[in-house]
């Protein structure tokens, strides 16, 4: 018979069939053999198309299709009947073909890129085992691994006595944890009573901070307008004196400052706030200092560059995403706290008796799930741990150093090349620059110039994507018109790729 993917094998049964509720119960429905066969055939396809080719500089970064065309090509509809083995394999192929190759050496578009094979293997293992990291009972290995990884990361932050922490589904959620824990520390009653009727809480972050700070304020009921934006200097760093002013302002208004979020590695410029001075302000006013090091935290792995985060040990909490610069694979986001009094647990626990029984036969302090706002939770630390085992601290450090060296190289080349203009000297891996096409080069830099320059990056972006040669992000920022933000991460990126970036932009923009 022509059966879909469950290639049926009819074989003798061990028990007579029974009919229950209209269902014939006789043996497993899930045919493991054909399922395993599918996995075995899909795997080489994944290795070839989604790993080897996808990281090969000679292949395209993307296979651009506009949305309507792509809908047609993919045939996404879900139907009553299943499809055949071959059809499903073809679907895998199509999904790969039209997906952007974020592991490609010329994918510079986001704050993640590249592919680490050890992390990938660990991720495959995680998927196959499908654990949930709430209790030791159900995920003993992954819980212990998370503990070790958090501890190691805290060493790099500089907390010798250790601390507390958890992996979160994203840096945005890590930042929310910070706000919630800081708020709870300030006033534990809020957990039970809520915010209504209380004096207004205010938090502070630089105007360059990640937008998740605003989303956190909205989500947690604090309100976006109660995030006071602190001015930054021309290098994108928070100005501590301005922070002091804002704190004073909030107090005069009768509001209650409770948290400062400093950013170590801002999203656009890759700037690092001056943590020591900010910590001084926080100490003076008894404010929780959270450092959003989602992007810049990995500089801590480099003895050469860790000075960028000097003072971070004074933070109360830190967000750090190894899935960014360290290529651990989405998601891999640690929320770390200096506290060792169980604050995280107290803040979040609901003590559900169906999950966190007190009378288990092992030490229930191993069940860390109640620290989380989540119930079931993926094991996100394992892939980082395994990669670390494979490469070692020195290997990870080497990657960071190399990425930053390449960024520096690109910046220097930009300075030498006509038509390219750096916005600012990069401190980290963000290289922000304009491309000024020949037709604009002799124009006086008035409103007309900027207006036309604003249109250059989007047009070049369109061309590079349709060609599939590379991907670089652009954005306007504050009063600056659209500029490119090139991000260097992957150790597979070469100097030639950096040269290519500039040549390609020139080629794509030559007629503008």
């Amino acid at each position, binding site marked *: 018979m022509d059966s879909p993917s469950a290639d049926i094998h009819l074989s003798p049964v061990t028990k007579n069939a029974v009919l229950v509720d209209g269902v014939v119960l006789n043996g497993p429905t899930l045919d493991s053999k054909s399922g395993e066969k599918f996995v075995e055939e899909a795997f080489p396809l994944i290795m070839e198309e989604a790993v080897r080719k996808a990281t090969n500089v000679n292949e395209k970064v993307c296979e651009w299709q506009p949305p309507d065309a792509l809908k047609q090509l993919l045939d996404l509809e*879900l139907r009553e009947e299943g499809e055949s083995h071959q059809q499903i394999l073809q679907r895998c192929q199509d999904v790969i073909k039209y997906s952007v190759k974020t592991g490609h050496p010329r994918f510079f578009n986001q704050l993640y890129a590249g592919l680490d094979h050890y992390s990938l293997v660990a991720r495959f293992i995680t998927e196959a085992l499908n654990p*949930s990291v709430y209790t030791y009972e159900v995920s003993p290995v992954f819980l212990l691994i998370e503990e070790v990884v958090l501890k190691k990361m805290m060493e790099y932050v500089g907390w010798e006595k250790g601390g507390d922490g958890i992996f979160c589904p994203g840096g*945005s959620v890590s930042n929310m944890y910070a706000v919630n824990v800081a708020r709870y520390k300030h006033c534990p009653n809020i957990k039970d*009573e809520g915010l209504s009727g209380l004096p207004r809480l205010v938090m502070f972050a630089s105007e360059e901070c990640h937008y998740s700070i605003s989303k956190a304020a909205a989500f947690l009921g604090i309100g976006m307008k109660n995030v006071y934006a602190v001015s930054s200097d021309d290098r994108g760093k928070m100005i501590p004196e301005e922070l002091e002013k804002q704190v004073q302002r909030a107090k005069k208004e009768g509001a209650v400052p409770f948290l400062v979020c400093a950013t170590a590695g801002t999203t656009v410029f890759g700037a690092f706030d001056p943590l020591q001075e900010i910590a001084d302000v926080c100490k003076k006013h008894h404010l929780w200092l959270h450092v959003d090091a989602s992007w810049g935290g990995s500089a801590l792995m480099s003895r050469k560059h860790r000075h960028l985060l000097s003072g971070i040990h004074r933070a109360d909490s830190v967000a750090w995403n190894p899935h960014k610069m360290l290529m651990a694979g989405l998601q891999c986001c640690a929320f770390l706290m200096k506290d060792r009094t169980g604050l995280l647990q107290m803040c979040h626990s609901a003590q559900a008796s169906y999950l966190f029984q007190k009378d288990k036969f092992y030490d229930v302090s191993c069940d860390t799930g109640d620290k989380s706002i989540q119930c079931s939770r993926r094991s996100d630390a394992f892939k980082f741990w395994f990669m670390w085992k494979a490469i070692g601290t020195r290997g990870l450090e080497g990657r960071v150093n190399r990425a930053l060296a390449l960024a520096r190289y690109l910046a220097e080349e930009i300075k030498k090349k006509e038509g390219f203009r750096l916005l600012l000297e990069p401190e980290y891996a963000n290289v922000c620059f304009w491309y000024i096409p020949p037709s604009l080069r002799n124009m006086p830099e008035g409103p007309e110039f900027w207006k036309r320059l604003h249109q250059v990056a989007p047009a070049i972006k369109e061309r590079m994507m349709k060609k599939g040669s590379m991907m670089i992000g652009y954005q306007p920022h504050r009063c600056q018109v659209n500029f490119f933000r090139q991000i260097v991460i992957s150790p597979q990126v070469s100097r030639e790729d950096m040269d290519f970036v500039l040549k390609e932009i020139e080629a794509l923009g030559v007629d503008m």
Partner: protein
Amino acid sequence: GPHQLPCDILPNDPTPVCEWKDPEMLRDLLDLELGDSSEPHEKLLQLCRDVARFSVKTNHPRFFNQLFAGLDHHALVGRFLSDSLNTSQYTYEVGPVFVLMEEVVLTKLRAVIGWNSGDGIFCPGGSISTMYAMNLARYRAFPEVKVRGLWSLPRLALFTSQECHYSVKKSACFLGIGLENVQLVDGIFPFMVSATSGSTVFGAFDPLDEIADVCQKYQLWFHVDAAWGGSVLLSKKHRHLMTGIDRADSVAWNPHKMMMAGLQCSAFLLKDTSNLLKLCHSANATYLFQQDKFYDISYDTGDKSIQCGRKVDCLKLWLMWKARGTRGMEERVDRAFAYTRYLMDEMKKREGFQLLLEPQFVNICFWYIPPSLRGQQGQEGYEEKLSKVAPIVKERMIKKGSMMVSYQPRGSQVNFFRMVVINPQITREDLDFFLDEIESLASDL
């Protein structure tokens, strides 16, 4: 004619469900330390083996411990693919296939609910879906709360049943509403009701039509936490358990549970078509959601989310659904129900197994009363002795590695087992074994 089900001899599976080690011992065995230099190839492979060996086999036919279990091979390939391609769901630019795919999958889930339009998103877990519902309900009632916060608002309250999942409480705390305000309190502004379709312990289904009537009358946001029970909607035979679901404002449904899509796969669905989700959450970050892109930017759905980077969770579900078809998915649900009934019938035939209640779903809650305690109900010390049975049996089964099933107390009811039937790889032998094993492990108690 009737479907031909694939039949296979399932040999006595020698793989234990778990290989128990207590934490101290496991730490030693695993060589967890992270060092300066890289480890050799062979050592790394050995680490892989060790990790797999000492991990609990949640795919095992005798893992009954949680509200997820089993393995779907197509979903697994979908997950391998998602990991290899490693992209974020926020824009069409970097995730073109997945942006389109997520919309198709959400549309399908909404259609199963009974909505032919609406909105939605995949969340990192059902708990966060609950938070989305709460935030949206609050925003709809008081849109100014996004910018101004809760300070000037009246105290908000929401209602839910005692059987609700604890994420309702965690959500109220996290969102600044406060634990005390989950229930009925004087002098407050009710804004939301969270009903449960498939409660965590009992698998009970709240009467949605009646609750919808109340919500309609008082203009309350009606959220249905169908994280666990949502999959009954796939079954023509059993979907009546959720009659009235189409009257909800929002629904949480986790395909990583009964549908075995693999953690995480949690859909948050809403009926709204006024772009409420985006209005509620957006921050309009210019570095990500540029307004001058060369394609239709309405495809950049990332600003609907509270997350920035977001893992692709739709592919595994989509690929599995493509492979199985809606009918294949329905068969699994019907099968799980049928096995539950079978197990219940067998249980009733055996002495010592006492059901707490007739299951509506696939959760079977029961006490096992060892021979020494039978007939002593009502006598002094009975409850205390009974409460010790489950923990000891659990310890024994874990150390033996033969199976895993959870237990818990509930209110005045002492520890009872909660058996959950999901995995299509389960056979009647496994269920018979389940009863035999409990009897055997408890025989001397």
